[in-house]
């Protein structure tokens, strides 16, 4: 802490907290209510964990999807054309 340029102001801290709150989806934002840092962090942690789970789940489903695609399917053509820049 001693090597820092200066302590972050309360205002800057509040801005960061608001920014985090805005990133939460509506339903989670309601759980937080007034910007209480503790609740916000708790909700953010929960949100990050659910996003990690979504990535896992979507990876699994994408994997299943790719298993059913063969080289000559129209979907494969779409991907190929997307990647041709």
């Amino acid at each position, binding site marked *: 802490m001693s090597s820092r340029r200066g302590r972050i102001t309360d205002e800057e801290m509040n801005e*960061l907290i608001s920014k*985090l709150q805005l*990133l939460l*989806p*509506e339903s989670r934002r309601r759980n937080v209510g007034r910007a209480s840092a503790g609740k916000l*962090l708790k909700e953010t*942690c929960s949100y990050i964990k659910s*996003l990690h789970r979504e990535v896992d789940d979507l990876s699994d489903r994408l994997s299943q999807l790719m298993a059913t695609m063969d080289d000559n399917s129209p*979907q494969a053509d779409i*991907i190929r054309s997307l990647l041709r820049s």
Partner: protein
Amino acid sequence: MNRKNPLPNSNPNSPNSSMQALHFLQALARIARAAPKPAHSARTRQIRHAAYASMAHSSRSSRRTWSRALLHRLRQWQQQRPGRLLTVRRRVRIVTPITSRPEEPARAETLRQLVPGGRGMEYCNLLEETADYVQCLRAQVQLMQTLLDAFSS
């Protein structure tokens, strides 16, 4: 699959999201071309790896501590070969203990574990990095969902 928590609007057309998307699509194409075709679980792992790699490589995030930490972690995953009996020898990183501000909530510790590289960060940096990390995570989830929707109709 109904999504209970629809994502708040984020601009899918920003250059950062495009880079992230392109990186991910290229990785998917490589995975699709692999011969022989990997088993489902192996391919799932590869896709998941590609997802996090795309997040870390998106231009906005490459300057961020979390993306460097994530890339480091990804390289370690890649070096592990599943199916082999591994003695996981963890390199113990000496993390300089951060004297918490008295007003730093206890929850910050959990957050530090969730955000890559979080343990070594000052509290306010942690909040900034978290915001950036969440944005990239959301964009990635949105991207993967869009791909699934586009190709499974």
